[in-house]
């Protein structure tokens, strides 16, 4: 169920024509855009996600209601159809959205821009990072933090100097998952950011559109997404993954 469809896809790829297809301007443009936006959204996920994970790991001592609300809020983008996420982003940042007019006053308009792609990707990828890091934080040995505190380190310093290095593998694993999820993002992006070559047309969108006119191109694009995802996931060493899932 997991491997067979992908194997079927690979079997249909027009290998002899692949190099030419891959070197074509639209494909390179989409590839570059996808890599750049996925890297940017991964960076934002790290900045936003690590504090969120720390908060979530601490939340055990909270009353049930706020704790569950917080957990649900973090999980929602994971289970929501991405198109709905895109609509939600339009309702927030669109011209007639809640924040849109205020942004417009500063001459900033987010929809249909490359930053909109990054926002859409961040929205869907953030939970992957949060949960990876949270799982690791829960399993850290609290005695080291307590020791750091008795030695006079503040909470922030303890977190940065003691806790974070201890969970570094999980942070890396989360970032990788985040990056690959961002790379594959389609629904929220096409809804919120649109589809313009070189600006907002990422690999998955280019692949979907190519399917309408030239299936060979679509397959070539699919192979790139697959290859990049596999390469990135292979970089993730085996022993890091258990930290993400279990523990």
């Amino acid at each position, binding site marked *: 169920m997991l491997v067979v469809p992908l194997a079927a896809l690979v079997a249909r790829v027009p290998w002899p024509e692949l190099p030419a297809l891959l070197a074509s301007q639209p494909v390179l443009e989409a590839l570059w855009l996808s890599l750049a936006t996925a890297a940017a959204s991964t960076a934002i996920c790290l900045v936003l996600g690590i504090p969120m994970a720390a908060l979530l790991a601490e939340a055990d001592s909270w009353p049930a209601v706020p704790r569950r609300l917080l957990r649900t809020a973090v999980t929602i983008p994971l289970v929501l*159809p*991405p*198109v709905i996420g895109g609509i939600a982003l*339009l309702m927030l940042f*669109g*011209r*007639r959205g809640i924040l849109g007019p205020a942004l417009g006053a500063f001459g900033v*308009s987010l*929809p*249909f821009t490359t930053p909109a792609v990054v926002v859409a990707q961040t929205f869907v990828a953030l939970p992957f990072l949060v949960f990876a890091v949270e799982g690791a934080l829960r399993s850290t040995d609290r005695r080291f933090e307590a020791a750091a505190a008795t030695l006079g380190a503040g909470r922030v310093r303890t977190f940065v100097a003691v806790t974070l290095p201890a969970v570094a593998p999980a942070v890396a694993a989360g970032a990788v998952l985040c990056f690959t999820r961002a790379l594959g993002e*389609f*629904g929220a992006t*096409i809804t919120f*950011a*649109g*589809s*313009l*070559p070189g*600006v*907002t*047309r990422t690999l*998955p969108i280019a692949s*979907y*559109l*190519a*399917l*309408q*006119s030239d*299936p060979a191109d679509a397959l070539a694009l*699919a192979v790139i997404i697959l290859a990049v995802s596999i390469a990135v996931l292979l970089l993730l060493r085996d022993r890091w993954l258990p930290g993400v899932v279990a523990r």
Partner: protein
Amino acid sequence: MARSTSSHGRAAVRPAPTLLGASLLVALAGCAGSGAAEAPGSAEPDAITGTVTVFAAASLTGTFDSLATEFESEHPGVRVVLDYGGSSGLAAQLVEGAPADVFASANEATMTTVVDAGVVADPQPFATNVLQLVVPAGNPAGVTGLADLARPELVVALCDPAVPCGAAASSLLELAGVVAVPDTLEQDVKAVVTKVALGEVDAALVYTTDTIAAGDAVEAIPVPEADAVVNRYLIARLVDSANAPAADAWVAWVTGTHGRDALRRAGFGAP
């Protein structure tokens, strides 16, 4: 791929008035059972039953919905399942063997790809459509004509040239000598209309029928050149349809008087 398709191709399965129709039929048959021969008109025993799956261009959405409701009350044993999307995407799915009974495309080029693949035969023209320049209600950007599509400061949406409405838009812009500066090239015409109706886009080229369907949320700006670029809509039954009698009845329904009236009301031109 499956995920993206399902989120964009809107499959509409409507709760058909079949139950009501069927119970009426039973009631009529019960009355007639005493002696009278057969109930008149639509209550005649219907030869066709089952499901008809129709892949239709996104621009046909409202019209085919109401035509299907009428068709189902005329043929109580039949359910029409409509799957709307960009014609080219639907065509690609059909060529890959998607199970459907009827295909209705928004232009000839798309139908040709499906005919060439041997999936359908003998497509019939049933409607035409022309493009219109649309703006959000109130025309906030003060758009007056096609030339405004070249203003870089406006947010302009067009269909991608790979789908029929985008191919028509390219021809129209070329004819008018306008080099548009689009901010997004969408995968089907309804996606464009939605973005105009939401006010996220200042101007767009969509079909006349979409402007009518969108109601008060959008305004149309007359474009004299638009009548020169006409999309011809074609409909055909699939060669391998699992329910050929019902599929043929649906094609006849769309190309017949009922279909023609409904299409005209929606703003389509005669074939």
